[in-house]
C-alpha cells in the first residue's frame, strides 16, 4: 500500500462532515481496508433493545463502499451513489461495528460494491449491502 493512497483516503474521509458526525474511521492492513464505527449514544435507533439505528448502519455500509472505491481509484472524484440495497441480519448492539467492502465489478462508468458489517464475530454479520456507484472521470 503506497503512502499516497492512504493519505488520500484519510483526507477523503475526514473532509466529510457527516463521517466525522458518525465518528467512523478506516484501518489498513496491507491492501485490506476495515472501516470502524466506534459506539456512541447518538447512533442509537432503538432505545428499548437497545440497538444502533438502521439508517446509521446503512450510512456506515455506504461510506465503507465509497472509501473502498476511493482507495482503489485515488485520483478520481468521489463516486455518486446510484442505489443501495441494505439487508438487516441481526440487531446491531451498542458496541463497536466493523465493515469490509468487496469491489465485485468496476466498469468504466459504474461499480458494483458489496459490503458486510459485523460486531463480535465476522461470521455473524449484522448487516449487508450491495450498491451501484457512478464513477466520475471529470476533475
Amino acid at each position, binding site marked *: 500500500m503506497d503512502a499516497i493512497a492512504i493519505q488520500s483516503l484519510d483526507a477523503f474521509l475526514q473532509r466529510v462532515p457527516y463521517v466525522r458526525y458518525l465518528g467512523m474511521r478506516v484501518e489498513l492492513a496491507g491492501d485490506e481496508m476495515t472501516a470502524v464505527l466506534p459506539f456512541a449514544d447518538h447512533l442509537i*435507533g432503538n432505545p428499548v433493545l437497545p440497538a444502533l439505528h438502521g439508517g446509521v448502519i446503512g450510512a456506515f455500509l455506504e461510506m465503507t463502499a465509497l472509501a473502498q472505491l476511493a482507495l482503489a481509484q485515488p485520483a478520481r472524484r468521489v463516486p455518486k451513489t446510484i442505489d443501495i440495497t441494505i439487508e438487516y441480519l441481526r440487531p446491531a448492539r451498542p458496541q463497536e461495528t466493523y465493515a469490509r467492502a468487496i469491489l465485485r465489478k468496476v466498469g468504466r462508468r459504474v461499480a458494483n460494491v458489496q459490503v458486510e458489517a459485523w460486531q463480535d464475530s465476522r461470521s455473524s454479520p449484522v448487516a449487508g449491502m450491495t450498491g451501484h456507484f457512478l464513477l466520475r472521470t471529470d476533475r
Partner: protein
Amino acid sequence: MADSYDTAPLAARMTEFVPHAAGVGMTLVSVGDGRGVMRVEWREDLVGDPDTGVIASGVVTALIDHTCGLAINAVFDAPSPIATLDLRIDYLRPAAPRTGVTCEAFGYKTTRSIGFVRAEAWDVDKGDLIATAQAAFMLNPRS
C-alpha cells in the same frame, strides 16, 4: 421528559426518545392512515459533500428507514415492535445544497408477519424527488 418511552406520544417516541433521530434533528410532520411524513433540516455537520454543501446520503438513508417505521406504526395506529428486513434506496439526484429533506412513507400491505412500505424523499418540491425507497419489515420480531 416526563413520559417514558412506552407511554410517550408517537411524535415523541419517533424523535426525542430515539437518540439518533434527535441527534440529526428529525421531526414528525404528519402521521395517519398508513402514512407518515418526517423531515430533517440541513445542518453543517450533516454534509456529505464538502465541495457543494449537500446533505449526506446517509442522513437520507436514516430518515427513510425511520419514516418507513413510522408508516408501519400508522397502519396499526399503535406502537408496534418492528425490525427492518431490507431497504432499497434509489438516489435519483443529490439534494439541493444547504437544504433539508422530507420523506413520506406508505405502508401499503401488511400480513401477520411482514409489512411492506414504499417511501419518497424530496428537498424542495414533492414533485421533484431526490430518492425513492422500498422496504420490508418484520412485525413483532420478538413474538
